[in-house]
């Protein structure tokens, strides 16, 4: 069974990570990088609802969005690097470390993935408050991923608050 341990230096050690969980974690970036326009809209919302703010919206698109895009990508790449550093255990599971300095990157990447999955599958409030069903169903599998990513996010929020 997977264990998560907070180390004295503030980093986190994930141990006994089975292949299924490892693959689900490695897939954090996939929904965000799916090219789905709904995901793009959610990742880069408009800064104003006022139709008279054309200048602000133009500036936002040309100046702010590229910066946010780079920051989001850097967070996902940091997570991917931590996962690439995973080591095998004798029992066939893996272990890996999230350095303290990468915690915010994990928070961001997990949040990006959850928001993207919700957009791709158009999950409703009701969906988000129920348990996933048959995991052979891609939508139910996505709901399970959201729940799993959310649990890790909650844990990181708790230790960084």
């Amino acid at each position, binding site marked *: 069974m997977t264990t998560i341990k907070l180390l004295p230096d503030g980093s986190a050690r994930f141990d006994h990570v089975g292949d299924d969980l490892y693959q689900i974690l490695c897939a954090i970036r996939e929904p965000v990088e799916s090219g789905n326009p709904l995901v793009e809209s959610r*990742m880069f919302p408009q800064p*104003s609802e*006022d139709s008279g703010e054309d200048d602000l919206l133009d500036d936002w698109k040309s100046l702010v969005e590229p910066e946010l895009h780079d920051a989001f990508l850097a967070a996902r790449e940091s997570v991917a690097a931590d996962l690439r550093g995973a080591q095998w255990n004798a029992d066939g599971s893996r272990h890996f470390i999230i350095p303290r300095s990468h915690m915010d990157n994990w*928070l961001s990447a997990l*949040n990006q993935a959850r928001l993207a999955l919700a957009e791709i599958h158009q*999950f409703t*409030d009701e969906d988000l408050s129920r348990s996933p069903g048959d995991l052979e169903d891609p939508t139910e599998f996505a709901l399970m991923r959201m729940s799993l990513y959310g649990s890790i996010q*909650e844990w990181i929020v708790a230790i960084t*608050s």
Partner: protein
Amino acid sequence: MATLETPEIETKDKSDLDSVWSVIVHNDPVNLMSYVTLVFRRVLGFSREKAERHMLEVHNKGRSIVWSGSREQAELYVQQLHAHLLLATLEKAPPP
């Protein structure tokens, strides 16, 4: 002798600069309540109690005014909230 053209400098409308602007955070069913609270504390410097109060207002009423002041600072806060993937907008506060 060469003449210098008067440069066109784009400025924000004076009434925009004089007005009070609000930063609004909108409800989002995906962002975790604990995460939103953390972001309010980090970005806006709220105490835990104040951050939780605004988070609950977003959750229950659909939106919360989290800051009011100059337009420039409001834009900066919206940018920082977007960097944390919160749905935030700025809007001109109604005159008192």
